[in-house]
């Protein structure tokens, strides 16, 4: 543990150095926060020490463990190099930080971000087996190239320490690097929490100022949306079950055949559901449900809500202008999805005098506060809201969302069959092996980080039906 301690203090030292080198202050103009990264560089570092002090004990432990496993990984590689099997890799921590909100102890979400850049030399690994000379050479070369590729990726990896709120009010602290997808982080949390690994588990961002909520999609890189948060953000990340997450794929008929009656929906055969998915997702082009109907629109700057007829198309949301028909060429574009995300809301009846509480907004992810660039829509009921929100997700993310779902299905079945047998190897090479240390229990055996090429052998009992 001495090593870890000394490394940690090294780390803090480096942070200080870096702060000093970033001496300039942004002019407090209205654009001061337009660049989040630059902003974070300019934030004073005394806060970090404070925030570390504020950290609850077990969170600090977990953070140390994360850093420790990085160290262990490095050591592992160093040792391996001596025997000539694996490559040298040293981690040197460059530093930047993102500070936390220390006033509210449970709202901590990002504490610091580490940019770890690796500089190392590599030795070609010895071939594992005796191979014919030509083949061995080719093998060595392939390995070398793989390593080179890996290093290209490894350079300047941004890391964040993230506090995730559980639905029971407790929290878990994780280190997330910028190459980790939400899927990776969810898997990590499955291990840490021993939850039932339902595919409805989601990581969700809440913004108390806008009273919005958005579940991150599994393919998103978690660090990216978090980078948009402001320094004084009260946003939180919550780990919770959201039945809406993959409803679209579990019951596609609700969306694709939305005009049919309830009875028809409920009697839908599984095979017909599959066919619907196949028709709309497996073709060369993705088909978006042909939603249309009256919604309330909050007009720019005004406080009133106006009813308009809206239509969803793959290319965006449209409305029927006054005195026009529903034909495509007459439609006016309301919004396209490239640059905006969709958020659900709470209590907009009170906040914005919305006709109902079933509202959603569309905004650029960078926008964190009330602004004329946010689009507000309001539905008559919860069902309509679910139709629009989920269909818009499909229009925005397309086949990616379907792939997320398929992966979630596979993951759920894998996890449930291997649970308690083995911990899954982390999918990204830099993902620290997790150490579970909740409430002072003894940690599990810490497995060394596998080599990037390492393919885990199937766990015992795999597929044996036991």
């Amino acid at each position, binding site marked *: 543990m001495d090593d870890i301690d000394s490394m940690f203090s090294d780390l803090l030292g480096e942070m200080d150095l870096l702060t000093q080198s970033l001496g300039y202050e942004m*002019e407090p103009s209205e654009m001061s926060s337009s660049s989040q990264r630059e902003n974070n560089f300019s934030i004073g570092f005394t806060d970090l020490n404070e925030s570390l002090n504020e950290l609850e004990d077990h969170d600090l432990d977990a953070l140390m463990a994360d850093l420790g496993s990085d160290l262990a990984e490095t050591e592992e590689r160093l040792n391996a190099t001596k025997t000539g099997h694996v490559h040298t890799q040293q981690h040197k921590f460059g530093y930047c930080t993102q500070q936390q909100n220390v006033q509210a102890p449970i709202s901590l979400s990002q504490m610091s971000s580490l940019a770890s850049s690796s500089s190392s030399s590599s030795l070609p690994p010895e071939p594992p087996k005796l191979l014919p000379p030509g083949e061995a050479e080719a093998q060595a070369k392939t390995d070398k*190239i793989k390593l*080179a590729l890996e290093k290209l990726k490894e350079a300047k990896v941004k890391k964040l320490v993230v506090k995730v709120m559980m639905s029971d009010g407790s929290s878990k602290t994780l280190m997330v690097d910028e190459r980790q997808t939400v899927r990776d982080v969810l898997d990590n949390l499955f291990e840490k929490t021993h939850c039932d690994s339902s595919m409805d588990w989601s990581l969700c961002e809440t913004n108390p100022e806008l009273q919005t909520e958005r579940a991150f999609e599994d393919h998103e890189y978690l660090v990216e949306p978090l980078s948009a948060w402001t320094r004084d953000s009260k946003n939180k990340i919550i780990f919770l079950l959201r039945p809406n997450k993959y409803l679209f794929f579990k019951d596609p008929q609700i969306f694709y055949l939305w005009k049919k009656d309830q009875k028809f929906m409920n009697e839908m055969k599984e095979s017909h559901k599959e066919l619907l998915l196949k028709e709309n997702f497996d*073709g060369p082009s993705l088909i978006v449900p042909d939603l249309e109907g009256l919604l309330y629109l909050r007009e720019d700057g005004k406080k009133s809500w106006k009813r308009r007829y809206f239509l969803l198309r*793959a290319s965006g949301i449209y409305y029927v202008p006054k005195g026009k028909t529903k034909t495509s060429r007459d439609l006016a*574009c309301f919004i396209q999805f490239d640059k905006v995300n969709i958020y659900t809301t709470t209590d907009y009846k009170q906040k914005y005098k919305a006709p109902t509480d079933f509202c959603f907004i569309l905004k650029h992810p960078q926008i964190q506060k009330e602004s004329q660039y946010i689009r507000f829509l309001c539905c008559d009921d919860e069902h309509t809201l679910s139709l629009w929100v989920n269909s818009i997700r499909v229009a925005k993310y397309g086949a990616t969302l379907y792939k997320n779902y398929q992966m979630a299905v596979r993951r759920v079945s894998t996890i449930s069959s291997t649970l308690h047998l083995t911990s899954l190897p982390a999918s990204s090479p830099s993902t620290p092996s997790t150490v579970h240390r909740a409430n002072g229990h003894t940690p599990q055996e810490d497995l060394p980080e596998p080599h990037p090429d390492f393919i885990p052998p199937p766990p015992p009992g795999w597929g044996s039906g036991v």
Partner: protein
Amino acid sequence: GHLDGHLMVLGKVVMAAWDLSVAVEDLGADAPPITVSVTSDLHIGGVILKLVEKSQVKRDWSDHALWWEQKQQWLLRTAWTLEKCGIQADAGLIFMPQHKPLRLGLPNGLNLRLRVCFSGPVFRTVLGICKMLNIRRPEELSLLRPVEEKKKKKDKDLSEELYDLTEVPLTSGTHYDIIMSPSTNHMSRPCLYNGMPAHFADSPKTEKVYKMLSVSQPAPPPEAIAKLYRPASVVDKAHIHSRWLDSSRSLMQQGVQENDRLWLRFKYYCFHDLEPKYDAVRLTQMYEQARWAVLLEDIDCTEEEMLLFGALQYHINKLSLSEPQTMTSSPAMDDLDSALQCLEVKLDGADSSPQDMLLIPTACEAVITVYFCLRPKRLTLKGYKQYWFKFKDASISYYKSREESLGEPIQQINLKGCEAAPDVNIVGQKFCIKLLIPAPEGMNEVYLRCENEEQYSRWMAACRLASKGKSLADSSFQSEVQSIRSFLAMQQTNPNTHNTHTDDSTSINTHSLVSPRYSKKYKAKQLTPRILEAYQNVAQLSLTDALLRFLQIWQALPDFGISFVVVRFKGSRKDEVLGIAPNRLIRIDLGVGEVVKTWRYNNMRQWNVNWDIRQVAIEFDGNVNIAFSCVTADCKIVHEFIGGYIFMSTRSREQSNTLNEELFHKLTGGHEAL
């Protein structure tokens, strides 16, 4: 027959000989028919033999067969006797080749003269044509009679350039070949020589034709688009579908004559197993069909979609002209292996340590002055101020002066995720970049006013890359600058007067890229910037990817793939429209123009046609029965559409190399198939 048998028992053929006269087409229309002496038990093959002998013409007669004009049928079963065929002395038979030239209009507007099969069912004729043209999955295409264009006589000669392929030798695939092995690999990947099938690689002339088949055609002038027939209503669209030929019968049987004009089109809108590598012609023609459907408003789309289609056309045009070889090279290295191989080459070439490789530049600096203005509250242009600007990575920084640019900037703005829109007026020499930069409080608007066209092009390109998080060092920077320049050039050359400047590869009239409706609605100077705006999202696509993207957006349109027929539902007293889509039938009220009801094929129990009263009846799950008669098209066409789509849905990836022709006919043939 039994009678024959009886006669044979007597040991002696007692049949009387009689004269059969047959016209031989090859001898010319004026030549008298050849008369041969036959008996009723002579088989067709024997008749042909006698004919050939008597004609005394030495040539290859193997493609010839007998056509029974009166009955409009071919006598293709050579083992059948005259008696069995029902032929008597008065039958007017014609001896003619089964393959004849046909003028074929392709989706891209190209007209070919092609030797095709006139004797087999049209389904098989299409197989032959597609094999010749190297189009896989021929079952998705069919032939239809062209729309007669109401042209003035003087126009008539200009348009139709005909490319003759009748002399192109086909290595295989004659009529008999196909008959012998109905499941030959029509879908399999063809062997290519020099990027084209062997029979095209024969002469420079045919090579040129193949290029025209496999590379999309340049944008037509807007005047030409405006002249073409455009369906104005659903009923107009329905009339087009009355022109499809019957797949179960031959061209001759449907009155198609030698050298007649027909169109080859994709008929069933479910494109199976599209592989750009092998489907150069198929993909290009599909794109062309889609493009013309959009340009001629055969399919409805919104303005935003039209602009995106326009931008993609522009991009595809440009790429097709500049690098026609892109199709053959694989566009993306999508697996690690190829990426590794690529790296390997680099390593070999440099013969140096991997360290060198890490020195790929990630930052590049360009120092340009711009006038800069912050317009916080929609002020006038008074707010413009001049600063010294630097562009680095994906950020711009500005300084009071050049001298101070070594120190700390007044401000640094990261452009990732921003929107960069042009605000350009060439006549007024105004070159502004409007930046919308997302920030926690909303979007910040920044206007950068550049000094000239050149500076604008470079800074605009840089802003666009930065908005995607790319730096100036990105390989696409130069091409981005280039495309912005060419768009600026278009705005200069286009205003109002259509001086027919030489068709330089980059100058395209943007009015050629949208349907006449939008040509009329917008002037070029309004249209061009909007297409440019849409273009920035597609500018980096490879040719193949751009074609695929165009098809994807087309296929995502709500009205995609619906073929219309005017029908009269049983019990209804007015005409309605039936839409036939790949997965469903749609009932559309003509008055309101709205979908009244949808039935999906997978809920369909059975369908059948009462050929006597020409009525189609369909039963769906849950005791839903519908029946209708067809007004604008024959009910065989509707029957074939429904059966065809059901056939298409039976195709699977596993058996991608076989075409179950028998099943197709079973599902689409109707009473002819029985």
